[in-house]
């Protein structure tokens, strides 16, 4: 009788201590994370005035209005395209850089450090630097293009399509190093014997990549891709600083849409509807990421 009850007493005390230690962190998240999220949900069901006061409960009217709004769908589609293309290019370039860094040569460590720089840099500052680089008249990118024979380089941030491409490139540029580092770490944990037996079988470089390297890092590729998708979808800074979503909304995605609806157009209900949509999308991807993460841990 004594032993089990003693154990139970100990574990009850242990649990008590655990809850005590968790209380500050959980209470903090309650106040500054869960409450604001609930608040956004609530606001999305109300009519609001210019300073964001709740005026009248309108059920799902705000949602219905958004569904009927073609601009909203344009932004949703653009966010999807932005995220998908961004992650795809990041994965490809990250893979290329990882393969390049997986070759032995002198100075490889320094090259690795240099490749990381875009990730180490501050995103807002990088966005400002790129704005200058892309300046169509005085920027050195167009000057360089001119020198190598491009007669009429684009007005990067002045036209819808080219500004979308520009901001997307900057977002990609920021996200590539993380991909490369994860892939590289994965490649270096693949046993040498696998490559050696591949060498015996006389496989070529492509087969080596497709049948040894890629399967070996499959798990990491999925985790890194999901994480990258979240970051890409969330990249407010690059877009806001470079174009503020313009010209004419050509670079607006959900995340900038939320901000601008609230703080610039003072349409708080509309902003909160977009925030809820964003929240749902992010939750799905975040849960996928967490599950993959834990599966890889085991």
């Amino acid at each position, binding site marked *: 009788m004594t032993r089990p009850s003693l154990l139970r007493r100990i574990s009850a005390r242990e649990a008590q201590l*655990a809850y005590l230690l968790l209380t500050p962190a959980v209470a903090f998240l309650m106040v500054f994370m869960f409450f604001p999220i609930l*608040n956004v949900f609530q606001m999305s069901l109300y009519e609001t005035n210019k300073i964001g006061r709740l005026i009248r409960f309108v059920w799902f009217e705000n949602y219905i209005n958004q569904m009927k709004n073609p601009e909203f769908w344009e932004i949703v589609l653009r966010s999807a395209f932005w995220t998908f293309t961004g992650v795809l290019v990041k994965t490809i370039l990250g893979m290329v850089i990882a393969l390049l860094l997986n070759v032995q040569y002198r100075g490889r460590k320094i090259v690795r450090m240099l490749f990381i720089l875009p990730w*180490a*840099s501050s995103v807002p*500052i990088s966005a400002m630097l790129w704005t200058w680089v892309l300046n169509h008249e005085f920027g050195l990118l167009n000057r360089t293009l001119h020198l190598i024979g491009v007669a009429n380089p684009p007005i990067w941030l002045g036209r819808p399509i080219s500004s979308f491409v520009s901001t997307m490139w900057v977002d990609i540029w920021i996200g590539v190093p993380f991909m490369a580092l994860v892939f590289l*770490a994965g490649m270096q944990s693949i046993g040498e014997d696998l490559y050696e037996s591949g060498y015996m079988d006389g496989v070529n470089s492509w087969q080596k990549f497709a049948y040894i390297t890629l399967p070996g890092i499959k798990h990491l590729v999925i985790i890194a891709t999901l994480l990258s998708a979240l970051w890409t*979808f969330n990249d407010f800074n690059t877009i806001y600083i470079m174009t503020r979503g313009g010209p004419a909304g050509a670079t607006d995605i959900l995340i900038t849409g939320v901000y601008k609806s609230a*703080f610039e157009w003072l349409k708080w209900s509309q902003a909160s509807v977009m925030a809820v949509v964003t929240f749902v999308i992010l939750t799905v991807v975040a849960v996928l990421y967490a599950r993959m993460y834990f599966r890889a841990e085991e």
Partner: protein
Amino acid sequence: MMAWRNRNKPMTLAITLVMLVLMLFPFAIMITTMLRDGTEIYIRPPQWFPDRPTVANLVNVWSEYNLFTYFESSMIVAVGTTILNMLLAIPAAYAVARLRFPGRSFALYLFLAIQMFSPVIIVISLFRIFARSGLIDSYLSLILANTVFTMSFTVWMMTGYFRSIPIEIEEAARIDGCSRVQTITRIMLPVAAPGLVTAMIYAFIWAWNEFLFALSFIKAAEKMPLTLGIYRFVGRWSTQWEMLTAAAFLALIPVVVLFYIIERRLVQGLAGGAVKG
């Protein structure tokens, strides 16, 4: 690694060089712009190298644009965020790493997922909360908001480090008469120091680079952190790019140095156990 060695090396190096140019281009432009006189910015055709290179901008930007105030704000906010993070995260991480309680795996799951949410989702309601409680234009608003988005990851990282400490060390300390708190402060924290430092640097960098909360909560120039200050004032009117690049260069130094310290552990923490240091 055998099979990768010494094959197509010139080709590898050539592609590496091209990729490096692509990745480092804006930093090269930053350097060549900040080293020139203001009269050499808006010229046609633009020149790659300044005629009369000068480091004057790196000095003048401090007085001309109150760069010191921005640095001070960034420092206060980043240090504050780091401290608040530690206060909240150390106990939580210890609980999750060492104690058994119902809901433990859910807590872990939650901490991992939370960091993935977007600041934009809650910035609207945080703004309303802070406006009502008079916290607009305060460092505290930024410290609180930054902590929401850094704490889950610091908990997560420290949990891993606490777990990697053999439980026997802790038990030995308990037998020697240490209380639970003493065990944490005297045994766990010193042993987990590398993880602790990584988490602290992570929180510091995050706060230093933060832009959205500052943009939303800070209107007074003297309270602006670097990111917002450089965006708002140096970048105003017809931009003085030689000044902006000088300010950018100075603002980047501390975070880039710190980033290189934690980079490997950060990748490990984000991608999970599949990545071995």
